[in-house]
């Protein structure tokens, strides 16, 4: 140990040689003075005594002053320390947060009263025992993480969540572990400060449970609504099909036979101008009636779909769209026959009809590519136009029922519909439907 740590001894060790040196110097100087007969020998004795006394007095007085100061410093330091100590003790004793210190071997070296309460042990029972075993004995769960060696090895702070106590009164704690560092920076152990987060945890758990219950309700109701929408859609299709059938069997047959009767009757009409004009009018009326009935019939139910399947029906649909406007259509269909079930066929057909109606109404396109692709487990319909594109605002409009209908219908069948920007502008609508669940449970209300 050097003088820095023992100021009194150092001072004394320095004061004695200094005093001896001063005594020797002054004595020698006074002796030289006597040799030069500056004063008599009897005066020398007196002077020597006086000077030595003075020197000793000075040295001791200085030493005493230094000792006083050192003592005072020490007292200051001690009182500061004890004040800090008592403050620390007050904090650690009064806090409700358990505080533990364990050494490098995992043995408990300190625990505040809250910590001891958490362990359910007295200070004597707890100190010197392994912390892990103590927590285990108190019904702890998840405290193994407190033995994380990274705190000591890498000197990092970590926070872990663990719980303590029997299951009915179990408390959950968040414990922050920080390295306890010695004067040279080496880790002597780990300081653990725990915070009781049981109520927060409980609130979180309740919230999570409520959230998941809510999600469940929402998804159940969504499923019901989708089933209902699907049911309505199926009913609507059936009704439309029935009306179309009626139109064909009744109106269509009547109109046909009326036309045939008229063909037989025309030669019997008088050949004057009035009747020639009337004949032309009757023929026009009949033609327009027939055209309207046939159009209504096809719109209600594409007979083509029932008779020849989706490929032929799409061909007919595109022919119809071609006649309506200045849009070119490129159609790519699988070479082989498509067998995807009646329900999916009408769904794909109606979706294509809806998408093309949108293109004609809003896209200002001049070219449309339609690609239908069917493989083992899915059917994919892609419609790509070169129009002005579909803005997100118009897509998210609350009254964009057509687009939403597409998405809902696809979702019910376990598929997806995506809208994206085409490479050269325009819109790409991609529909994917799985082939597995074309047998859907009937709706139960």
């Amino acid at each position, binding site marked *: 140990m050097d003088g820095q740590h023992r100021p009194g001894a150092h001072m004394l060790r320095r004061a004695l040689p200094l005093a001896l040196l001063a005594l020797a110097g002054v004595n020698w100087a006074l002796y030289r003075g006597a040799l030069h007969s500056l004063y008599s020998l009897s005066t020398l004795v007196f002077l020597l005594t006086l000077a030595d006394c003075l020197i000793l007095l000075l040295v001791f007085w200085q030493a005493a002053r230094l000792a006083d100061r050192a003592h005072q410093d020490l007292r200051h330091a001690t009182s500061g320390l004890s004040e800090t100590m008592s403050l620390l003790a007050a904090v650690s004793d009064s806090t409700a947060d358990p505080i533990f210190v364990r050494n490098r071997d995992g043995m408990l070296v300190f625990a505040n009263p809250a910590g001891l309460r958490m362990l359910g042990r007295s200070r004597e029972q707890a100190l010197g025992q392994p912390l892990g075993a103590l927590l285990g004995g108190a019904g702890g769960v998840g405290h193994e993480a407190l033995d994380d060696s990274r705190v000591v090895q890498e000197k990092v702070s970590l926070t872990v969540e663990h719980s303590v106590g029997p299951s009915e009164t179990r408390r959950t704690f968040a414990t922050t572990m920080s390295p306890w560092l010695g004067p040279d920076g080496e880790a002597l152990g780990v300081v653990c400060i725990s915070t009781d987060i049981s109520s927060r945890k409980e609130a979180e758990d309740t919230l999570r449970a409520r959230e998941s219950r809510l999600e469940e309700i929402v998804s159940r109701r969504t499923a019901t609504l989708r089933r209902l929408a699907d049911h309505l859609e199926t009913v609507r299709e059936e009704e439309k099909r029935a009306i179309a059938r009626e139109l*064909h*069997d009744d109106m*269509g*047959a*009547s*109109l*046909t*036979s009326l*036309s*045939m*009767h008229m*063909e*037989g009757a025309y030669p019997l009409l008088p050949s004057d101008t009035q009747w020639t004009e009337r004949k032309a009018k009757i023929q026009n009326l*009949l*033609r327009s009636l*027939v055209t309207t009935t*046939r159009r209504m019939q096809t719109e209600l139910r594409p*007979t*083509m779909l029932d*008779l*020849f399947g989706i490929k*032929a029906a799409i*061909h*007919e649909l595109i*022919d*119809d769209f071609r006649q309506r406007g200045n849009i070119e259509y490129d159609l790519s269909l699988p070479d082989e026959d498509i067998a995807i079930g009646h329900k999916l066929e009408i769904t794909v057909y109606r979706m294509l009809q809806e998408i093309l109606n949108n293109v004609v109404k809003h896209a200002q396109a001049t070219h449309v590519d339609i690609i239908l692709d069917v493989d083992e487990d899915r059917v994919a319909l892609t419609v790509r136009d070169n129009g002005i594109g579909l803005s997100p605002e118009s897509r998210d409009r609350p009254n964009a029922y057509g687009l939403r209908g597409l998405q809902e219908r696809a979702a019910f069948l376990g598929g997806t519909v995506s809208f994206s920007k085409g490479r050269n502008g325009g819109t790409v609508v991609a529909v994917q439907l799985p082939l597995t669940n074309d047998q859907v449970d009937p709706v139960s209300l």
Partner: protein
Amino acid sequence: MMPAQRDASLLEQKQAALRVMLVEDSHIISDLISENLARIPKLRLLGIAETETEALSMLQEQPCDVLILDIQLRQGNGINLLRVLSADPAYAKTLKIVLSNHVSGTYRRICEQYGVQFFFDKTSEFPQLQMLLSRLSQTGIDS
């Protein structure tokens, strides 16, 4: 003329007549058609079938020269019937004529694929069918 000779000549006459079969599910229309076809000499309407199955069994019972059929039927459909017939060489020589209210280009194309030679709009083109049948009854099916 001996009764046997008379029978033979009647038989010849019958054989020479154009044998027509009609597949049509609407009574009013089939009545009208048969009424109109009856006016064509040398044409014999063998029968009227209302469904696909009925048509098939009738065809199997007696051969015909001309088959006039509608596309949409109460049971089955005309195209299925054509599909079956196109696979059977026994019906290769039968003249197939579609008379329907489904008249779009797609229907016409499909019917052509299945060996339909003539396609008429039931509502507006019946007179043309009548003319065709009159001509065929005179000249025979091979012409």
